[in-house]
């Protein structure tokens, strides 16, 4: 499927997915329900509300003291022998790679799974520099072979069925057309092992950054991040500035709550802690470690007095898994890196409000996301917050604004309201409804409602109740 490149295309892209690729809804629906069932089970084993309070409070504290903790982290990382880079924009982050690729004559790179590197468009940049880059997370590997962006924060190939993977691996890796999942994974492992051993450069993201020890912490299940961070001579970790937490001890808690929220595991199969390059006498690890602290719109989000809370996000994907809107289409319809509820509340700051439209409206405000968020981001309230900003910026449709202004005026004048709502009740839905705003959208997919014979207020007035 061809993914749209912009959030503005959301409606068209969602329609195209539902109409042309009904299998996506099946794959995404089944996988997200499984993720969510595992999350529920995992949270039932702990005291979830106390954990969520703790996680919210630590993250909020770090975000409100961000300068202090980032400087502390930089100091410790530098003392550990890592090089720290501050990147205000994607271009500045990519420039770090350009320098390393030139200086170290990098020709091949392996990448551990990282949404931030997707956001920065690291792969196309490396390819322009002539570097062969390989995604090594199984899901990322699948979609790289297909030339698609990730469809989910945790499960990038969530929109693909097992048969899609069978066909792909049969074509690319020569596996049997009816190979079992284990055989497909083994074929990928074999192909990737050769790339790991040959790579000049390893690239990762970072789930958390402990300020007190200068430690980048990474969670995964397949071991590809462990290899990407330890085998190549040079390692570059891209870490969003919002990932810093005060202490390594905090990381220990976040590793657990994130894994429980994401996949229902008590902790990821692998946890990698990066502090710096190989030291004298050590046999493993890169010679050179770079940590790129990336802003790319995050301070803008931090400056918003409501939406800053979205920066607490640990990228577990729980809000996507529970979201009935996300389940309809998967992530591609959203038109940028971060889909689902969390994507819709960070897009306006990271992309700009106009560019992010209509993502804040891609929600029925059902509230399911707020109940599962491990760091208690008030997602529905923030969706409304961005809608308010859109109205202030004049981005709401003119017909909607005019209709709501008229409706409000009527609501303040009961007699006017009585007449107006009676008109709505007697609108010839079946005859002309399709041509009217609001009613047209309704009629497209549903039969018209049956209005009551008389309004309740009239029945009351006439003493019929």
């Amino acid at each position, binding site marked *: 499927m061809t993914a749209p490149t912009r959030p503005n295309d959301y409606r068209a892209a969602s329609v195209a997915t539902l109409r042309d690729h009904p299998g996506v809804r099946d794959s995404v629906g089944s996988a997200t329900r499984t993720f969510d069932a595992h999350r529920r089970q995992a949270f039932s084993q702990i005291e979830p509300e106390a954990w969520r309070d703790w996680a919210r409070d630590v993250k909020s504290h770090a975000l409100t003291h961000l300068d202090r903790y980032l400087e502390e982290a930089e100091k410790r990382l530098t003392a550990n022998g890592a090089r720290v880079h501050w990147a205000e924009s994607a271009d500045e982050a990519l420039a770090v790679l350009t320098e390393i690729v030139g200086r170290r004559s990098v020709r091949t790179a392996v990448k551990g799974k990282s949404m931030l590197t997707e956001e920065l468009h690291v792969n196309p940049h490396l390819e322009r520099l002539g570097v062969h880059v390989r995604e090594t997370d199984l899901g990322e590997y699948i979609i790289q072979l297909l030339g698609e962006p990730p469809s989910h924060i945790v499960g990038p190939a969530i929109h693909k069925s097992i048969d899609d993977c069978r066909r792909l691996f049969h074509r690319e890796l020569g596996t049997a057309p009816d190979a079992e999942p284990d055989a497909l994974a083994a074929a990928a492992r074999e192909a990737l092992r050769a790339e790991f051993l040959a790579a000049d450069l390893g690239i990762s993201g970072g789930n958390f950054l402990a300020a007190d020890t200068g430690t980048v912490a990474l969670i995964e299940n397949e071991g590809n991040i462990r290899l990407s961070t330890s085998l190549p001579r040079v390692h570059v970790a891209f870490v969003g500035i919002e990932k810093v937490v005060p202490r390594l001890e905090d990381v220990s808690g976040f590793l657990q709550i994130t894994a429980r929220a994401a996949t229902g595991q008590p902790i990821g199969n692998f946890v990698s802690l990066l502090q710096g390059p190989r030291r004298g006498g050590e046999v493993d690890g890169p010679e050179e470690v770079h940590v790129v602290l990336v802003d790319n719109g995050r301070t803008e989000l931090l400056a918003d007095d409501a939406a800053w809370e979205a920066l607490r996000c640990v990228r577990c994907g729980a809000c996507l898994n529970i979201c009935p809107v996300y389940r309809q289409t998967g992530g591609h319809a959203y038109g940028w890196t971060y889909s689902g509820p969390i994507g819709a509340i960070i897009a306006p700051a990271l992309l700009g409000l106009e560019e992010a439209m209509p993502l804040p409206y891609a929600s029925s405000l059902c509230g399911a996301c707020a109940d599962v968020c491990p760091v208690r981001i008030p997602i529905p309230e923030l969706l409304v917050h961005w809608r308010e900003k859109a109205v202030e910026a004049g981005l709401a449709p003119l017909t909607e604004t005019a209709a709501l202004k008229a409706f*409000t005026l009527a*609501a303040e004048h009961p007699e006017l309201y009585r007449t107006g709502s009676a008109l709505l009740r007697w609108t010839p839905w079946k005859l002309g409804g399709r041509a009217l705003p609001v009613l047209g959208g309704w009629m497209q997919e549903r*039969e018209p409602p049956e209005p009551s014979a008389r309004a309740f207020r009239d029945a009351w007035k006439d003493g019929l*109740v």
Partner: protein
Amino acid sequence: MRVAFFATCLGDQFFADSCADAVRLLRHLGVDVDFPDRQTCCGQPAYNAGHRDEARRMAEHTLSVFADHEYVVLPSGSCAGMVRCFYPALLGHPSGSRDVGLADRTYELAQFLVQVLGVEALGAGLAGRSVAYHHGCHALRELRVEDEPLALLRGCGADVVEWEADRECCGFGGLFSSKLPEVSAGMADRKLATLPDVDVVTSADGGCLLQLSGRAARRAPDRSPPFRHLASLLWEGVGA
């Protein structure tokens, strides 16, 4: 005890009979019911669409209409959620002032019956009937009203049948249903595809019922189950 009945926009125009049933039910339980006739809309459509100023004006109006009533009862979890959860911040009055009072005095019908009146059993009028209950999102997640409607239905003898997707959004979402009709319809389809074979489907929210019944009628007009508002079903449950 006196309560003010707030019919809500959809209740007034599309569920007038259910509003009447709600009033009958309250009277049957010994409650005097007022209907302040200056009532209009709680403001939720504007609030959810981001038109905060318009929402505030409607909230101010609603506050003035119900200023003096000890309880305000609505046949809608969504509108009750709007008043209870969002009025205090929207009206921006210091806590303890009238708006906070209205939030605390406002109840969805089933919530009022169970939490305030302490009703356990209404009658046996639903004996032998199988019912699927759709948890409207705002009753469930804003008001945290979950067991109350189920207990009331069972108390009337209904067999409340398990429904895999009973807590998932139906896709209504007010203007959402019209702005993104295809995704909204897909959400309704998921609900309908998992719906068990029952005598009647019910919910505390008219918006959800319009969405589910409208979509069911579009998909399979001949096989659409009856959709009834909770207020009507409970009144029937009294068996009076």
